[in-house]
């Protein structure tokens, strides 16, 4: 293996830097004696070519959308256009400090303003902040706004947030961090929201309900407006988890469904690359009654006066608007993940007013893939030991769908995890595994709009092959990956969380 800490060249191998602008002895005098560092950190001493090879070697041991089909449900792993990477290298964003005066920032402020407006329009909300830097932080921010809203109405005693049992784990975690107790309601048979359970759960202690639509089963919650009515009647607020926003843009929006607040995942819907786990960006939108609680500041504009400097040349002067006394303040120390905002801007500009095509193709791909998986031709069907079950009995799904491997497990012991690991051998990233937890042995599949029919046909065919294979081959998978199944229990028991120094691996 390549081990970065095995490079122990001469000092100064990997860098060239100018000298300090004062003599070193003089500089040392400016550092108090009692606190100067005695021994330098044990970092590698590697040359640039050694580093290039090390990280290239590592990248070859990693699987991205660029490597192959990535049907990871709820994560919207769509193609990341490379133009967007080029744009964020421009000095007009890369070399900008957020505390520069507005006269230096007209371009960025105009993009922030345009993105606020675009997101508000697509979601049916009145105001948007781009400050939260991840979906979970967006949830947290919106629930904090709702918390302050209730307090301002003298209803700070509302201490419960309702989430369906199919919700993303971040929903209850975010509400809990705000100090709320969580009321989890079971889904109805078929996986949709159970209105009777919701009626039983709401009360004068309800602060909010958090829900995504389409649900994590890929189902459109057809009774969503009634759910909103029930929650509002009890005095609660409706929060829309935007993880599945890719399914509905231009077709409907959370505002029409009755929501008061929503977060957007720019790293899902708007193609900010996931980067191995981040960065993300989780702006939120709210209806007018929540606007004054948003984090501060937001981008605003006015018609340019003749004495104003030129700006971006669209006739407006852009500025930061303080949200005011009721604002919850800051959730990130600057203005959010501006790089993600600019990439998302470049992404949406490609579609413009045709943005709904994105959702149409995502939903088409999802339904088509589900259809061809569940309806193999006769010859293929004969070879299959056991077909998976639908995660939800439904005619139509939205941008993603779930399959249950429970019938396989019952027949020959092959689990959802086994199928997922076997798909790695076929050159795919595995679907999302064991989520939502209400579907036994669940695989959750989201093809996104950027895959072709050919890719979907091949994937269905390969999944059918897995279902036809000798169970032993599947349960012992993967066979062709760089490492075989990794012992997660050993990792958790031994907790080797850093390089131990010296030659590694040891014996």
């Amino acid at each position, binding site marked *: 293996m390549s081990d970065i800490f095995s490079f122990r060249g001469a000092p100064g191998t990997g860098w060239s830097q100018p000298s300090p602008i004062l003599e070193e002895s003089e500089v040392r005098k400016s550092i108090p004696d009692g606190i100067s560092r005695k021994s330098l950190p044990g970092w590698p001493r590697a040359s640039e070519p050694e580093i290039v090879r090390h990280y290239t070697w590592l990248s070859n041991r990693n699987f991205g959308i*660029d490597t192959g089909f990535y049907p990871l449900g709820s994560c919207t792993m769509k193609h990341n256009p490379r133009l967007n990477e080029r744009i964020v290298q421009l000095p007009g964003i890369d070399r900008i*400090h957020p505390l520069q005066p507005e006269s230096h920032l007209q371009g960025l402020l105009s993009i922030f303003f345009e993105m606020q407006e675009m997101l508000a329009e697509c979601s049916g909300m009145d105001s948007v902040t781009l400050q939260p830097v991840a979906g*979970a932080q967006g949830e947290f921010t919106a629930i904090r706004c709702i918390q302050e809203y209730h307090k301002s109405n003298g209803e700070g005693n509302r201490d419960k947030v309702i989430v369906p049992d199919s919700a993303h784990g971040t929903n209850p975690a975010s509400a809990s961090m705000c100090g709320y107790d969580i009321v989890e309601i079971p889904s109805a048979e078929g996986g949709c929201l159970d209105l009777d359970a919701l009626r039983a759960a709401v009360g004068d202690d309800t602060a909010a309900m958090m829900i995504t639509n389409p649900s994590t089963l890929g189902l459109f919650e057809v009774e969503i407006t009634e759910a909103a009515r029930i929650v509002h009647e009890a005095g609660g607020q409706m929060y829309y988890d935007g993880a599945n926003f890719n399914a509905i843009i231009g077709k409907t929006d959370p505002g029409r469904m009755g929501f008061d607040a929503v977060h957007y995942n720019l790293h899902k819907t708007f193609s900010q690359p996931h980067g191995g786990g981040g960065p993300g960006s989780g702006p939120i939108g709210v209806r007018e009654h929540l606007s004054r609680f948003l984090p501060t500041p937001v981008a605003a504009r006015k018609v340019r006066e003749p004495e104003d400097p030129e700006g971006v040349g669209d006739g407006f002067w852009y500025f930061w608007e303080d949200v005011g006394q009721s604002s919850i303040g800051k959730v990130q120390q600057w203005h959010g993940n501006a790089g993600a905002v600019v990439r998302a801007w470049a992404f949406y500009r490609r579609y413009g007013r045709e943005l709904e095509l994105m959702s149409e193709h995502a939903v088409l791909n999802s339904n*088509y893939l589900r259809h061809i998986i569940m309806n193999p031709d006769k010859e293929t069907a004969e070879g299959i030991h056991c077909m998976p079950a639908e995660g939800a009995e439904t005619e139509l799904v939205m941008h993603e769908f779930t399959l249950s491997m429970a019938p396989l497990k019952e027949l020959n012991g092959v689990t959802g995890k086994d199928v997922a690991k076997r798909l790695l051998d076929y050159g795919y990233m595995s679907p999302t595994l064991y989520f939502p937890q209400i579907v036994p042995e669940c695989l959750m599949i989201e093809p996104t709009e950027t895959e072709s029919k050919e890719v979907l046909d091949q994937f269905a065919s390969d999944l059918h092959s897995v279902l036809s294979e000798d169970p032993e081959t599947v349960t012992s998978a993967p066979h062709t990956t760089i490492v075989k199944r990794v012992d997660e229990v050993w990792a958790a028991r031994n907790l080797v969380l850093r390089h131990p120094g010296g030659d590694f691996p040891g014996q």
Partner: protein
Amino acid sequence: MLEAMGMSSMDDLFSNIPVGIRRAEPLPLPDPQSEEEIWADAQRILGSNVSLDDRPSFLSAGLSRNFVPSVVGMLATRGEFLTSYTPYQPEVSQGMLQAMWEFQTMICELVDLPISNVSMYDASTAAAEAITCAVRVNNRKALQKDIVYISSLVPPHRMSVIRNYTIGAGIEIRTIEHDDSGNLLLSSAESATGSCAVYVEQPNSLGIVDIGLTELKSIIGDETSLIVGIDAVSLGVLEPPGKWGADMVVGEGQPFGIGPTFGGPIYGIFACSEKYLRQMPGRVVGQSWDTEGSLAFTLTLSTREQHIRRHRATSNICSNETLIALMGAIHMSLLGPEGLERLALRVAASTEATKRSISRINSVELVNPESSNFREFAIRVPGSASDALLHLDSNGVIGGLDLGMWWEGMSDCILVGVDERTSEDDIAALHDGLRGWIEEVCG
């Protein structure tokens, strides 16, 4: 494809959406654009901004106008890294897992603590979640339950983040004051004994290197966490907080890996001692083996996290800043120990040289003339800081931060921030600009 499913139009796919909530009218957005049109627009629009590289700049305040070696971005944006998801499938994610395990090691070495996660959103959320973590660990035994003490020089935007993150846990924040030289009042730090945590920054927000902080742990005792916010580059010359009793170290990783990039994406450093391991936020990579006995890496301690523990998770963090942490790891690998030291010496030299130059101007005072500084220092100018900065701006110099934006009573003070790239010409431009301002105000 529609035909294969027995459908005739795209509308059939959306027939589950009730008619009453369908959007009838098209989105009022601009016409679709081609790649070259978007690129032209981006160049024009972003080109209207003033970049820090266009002129002498002394604006830092927690972000660095750094130099990032060319190889960093080129390697980190290789598609296999850039377009991958969280490495939940270790068999096909060994590259990112190992890179993050190496990152954890480099951070541990930098701050001298045994455990690091794979990044927080930024320095402020890292500080905030360190505080809530400390309360979870210490509250049961604490004499001052649900109480933490924070230096009064922690800047207000960070305090605002901390308040948002601590309000739900019912944490009360008390402040520890500083003396006239900007050093923490150790006598008032004694009142923090028995509380859950103390949070201080070294250097503090005025750039002051406070040697007294090295005594803080012996004052507050073992049962109260000492959380230290750092300037990561400063640890090339300053003793790491792990050596002087810090239980947790947090800070901004941005100087290693990425430009100031309008404040994001950047990444927060989070490191701690073993006591906090099971209550810490964020993802952690551990070493393990595969079924054939080959070395392998995997995410571990996941039972702390939201996707498993849901509302009982130690944090809601899911997406983090892994790719930027990867850029940091590559940058740190290039520097090596001596490169880090050189970088820190360059920043220290810029600080000292700028301070000397400014202190020669009559009518401009150093706010803390006795202090040692790293990267930043505060000056007091005649008139208002905002007017002085406008004057400098009109002379093509970004002069620093108007401290009146942070603290009442400092509206005649500027926070001057330097970096490794500050040149003698830059310093001369600031010097001349300030003299020009003095002439304008004092005649």
